[in-house]
């Protein structure tokens, strides 16, 4: 299996591409790296500089202090985080069983599901938004009139990222055989999920969570369309009034995305490192 598609499974940059790059030599590599680095870093640095700029080019942190003093800053941030966490939760709840089921029972439909998961990229998000709204119209107000509906929108809109992340994790293990081995050993689905699927799909689950969360923290159009003042919506509103505050805000937004990502990554990689002593056993006996 693996040998059939070495290009996909081998590490990026190995084999095929590297020979060309090597021929061009090290200087070329450094030039590329530097250019890419500049492309990312220059805007961030100059934004940062701008956000600390007071009258007459003096240094000030007033943009930040003002922001932190705004009630809306905290409330919108909290709303976005809440929606993000909810979306991640719903996404995993929906997608893990789906992806597993498709691989084990409906392998022929894999391509169909994959294509379907890409639809939100193709269909304009306004259309998706209206579609989701229409589908959930009948539901009680706790869903329909609250940020829950926003999470439902984001579950759909982030599908291209979340589905791919999980799907590729599933493809990297022989899921069908592992499931069947587990079943023949007497395991039901719950225990399979807990002992076999979740631990072996951890990478994909983390990836899907990170991508989904980041998506939620950055999405503007749909939130604005549905009149929820999320963090990005707040950012745009501020931007129309105070430029340096808006820039400070977007830097903070970056931080707020990165910090949870870093935490998730660190927590999970530590758990992984501890694995050499049987973790699950401790959890389970009592």
């Amino acid at each position, binding site marked *: 299996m693996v040998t059939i598609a070495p290009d996909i499974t081998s590490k990026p940059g190995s084999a095929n591409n590297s020979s060309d790059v090597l021929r061009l030599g090290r200087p070329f590599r450094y030039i590329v790296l530097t250019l890419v680095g500049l492309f990312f870093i220059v805007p961030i640095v100059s934004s940062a500089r701008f956000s600390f700029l007071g009258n007459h080019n003096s240094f000030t942190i007033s943009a930040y202090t003002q922001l932190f003093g705004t009630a809306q800053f905290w409330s919108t941030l909290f709303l976005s985080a809440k929606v993000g966490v909810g979306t991640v939760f719903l996404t995993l709840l929906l997608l893990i069983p789906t992806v597993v089921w498709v691989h084990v029972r409906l392998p022929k439909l894999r391509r169909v599901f994959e294509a379907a998961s890409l639809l939100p990229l193709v269909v304009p998000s306004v259309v998706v938004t209206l579609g989701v709204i229409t589908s959930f119209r009948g539901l009680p107000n706790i869903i329909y009139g609250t940020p829950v509906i926003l999470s439902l929108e984001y579950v759909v809109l982030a599908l291209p990222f979340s589905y791919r992340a999980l799907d590729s994790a599933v493809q990297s293990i022989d899921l069908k055989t592992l499931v069947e*081995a587990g*079943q023949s*050993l*007497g395991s039901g689905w719950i225990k399979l999920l807990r002992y*076999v699927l979740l631990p*072996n799909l951890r990478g994909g689950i983390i990836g899907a969570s990170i991508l989904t969360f980041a998506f939620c923290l950055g999405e503007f159009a749909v939130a604005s369309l549905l009149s929820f003042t999320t963090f990005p919506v707040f950012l745009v509103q501020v931007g129309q009034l105070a430029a340096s505050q808006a820039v400070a805000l977007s830097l903070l937004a970056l931080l707020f995305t990165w910090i949870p990502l870093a935490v998730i990554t660190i927590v999970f990689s530590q758990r992984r490192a501890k694995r050499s002593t049987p973790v699950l056993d401790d959890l389970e006996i009592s």
Partner: protein
Amino acid sequence: MKTKTNTQGGRYGRSGLPVEFDGIARNFKDVAALKSFNLHADPGELIVLLGPSGCGKTTALRVLAGLEMPDSGRVTIGNHDVTSLPAAKRNIGMVFQSYSLFPNMTARENVEFGLRVRGQKQSDRTARSNELLELIGLKDQADRYPHQLSGGQQQRVALARALAIKPEVLVLDEPLSALDAKVRSSLRDEIRRIQLELGITTFFVTHDQEEALAIADRIAVMHQGQLEQLDTPLAVYTNPATEFVAEFVGTVNRLPGKVINSNTVEVATVGPINYAYDGAFPSGSQVEVLVRPESIGVRDGGDDTCRVLAKSFLGSTIKLTLLDKSDRLIIVAIPTSEAALVANSETVSLYSRGDALLVKDGAR
């Protein structure tokens, strides 16, 4: 060997259960993977399923293990009809062709998995996994992860994992096919030893005839989703029920012949050969005769000679590839003790030194 089963206080001291496939059919779209497939395994017996690729061996095992539901027919283990029982409830130990250990668990955790999902106490689980890791000789590797084990070791652990649950039936689908020849034959013998020790009814799929002949109590030769013959290795080899079995197990020569009387047939180039055929052909009928390479002997000289195209030394036998005067290829196997007969000869003549395998109507 057998005594160990009893000294273990009956832990292994259970002779296996009979297993019955009764008229199983399983279709995948337009492919009939199994059609009215019948097979009865006696308690404690090791049955090897042998047959060409796509004949339904894996499907048969999966139906037995509950991983595939038959369209019709019944599967019985002991006295229980398990046809509609899900895999998790069947208590069948399964070893897969591909490496199937849980990558996130050590060898020991893998072995204990089936006990863990049954909610057994850690101390019982450890005792049992120690016992099994000992049985497969991997006690020192207990804390390694699958990726730290060789292919052969992984399949041993898979075997231990399957046995840990004290399965009623053991099912192995080409468990050795990913291993190199040396490991394959030693692990094969080990599987047989353990199987005999436990007395567990076992189904073993292989493509490798030698493997099949070596470990089977009985071989089930399958063809196009059906059982062609179920018999001891010796009987399958020396007394194939059908032409397909004769061709599939071992090598055969097909030669035209003419029936002389109810138990002799005159075969081209080789001469008269004995045969046993129930509905004997009338004398003079043109027939096709299937003869094993070792049922033909060679001698120097003679009129009806064959040219020696190739000689290959196989240890206890020498395989000769011959071309007769009508340009038919004939394969002959002679004992190495007769090597002198063909040491310098370019041509040899043939005679029969055993019975014909099968005689069938009409020469081609």
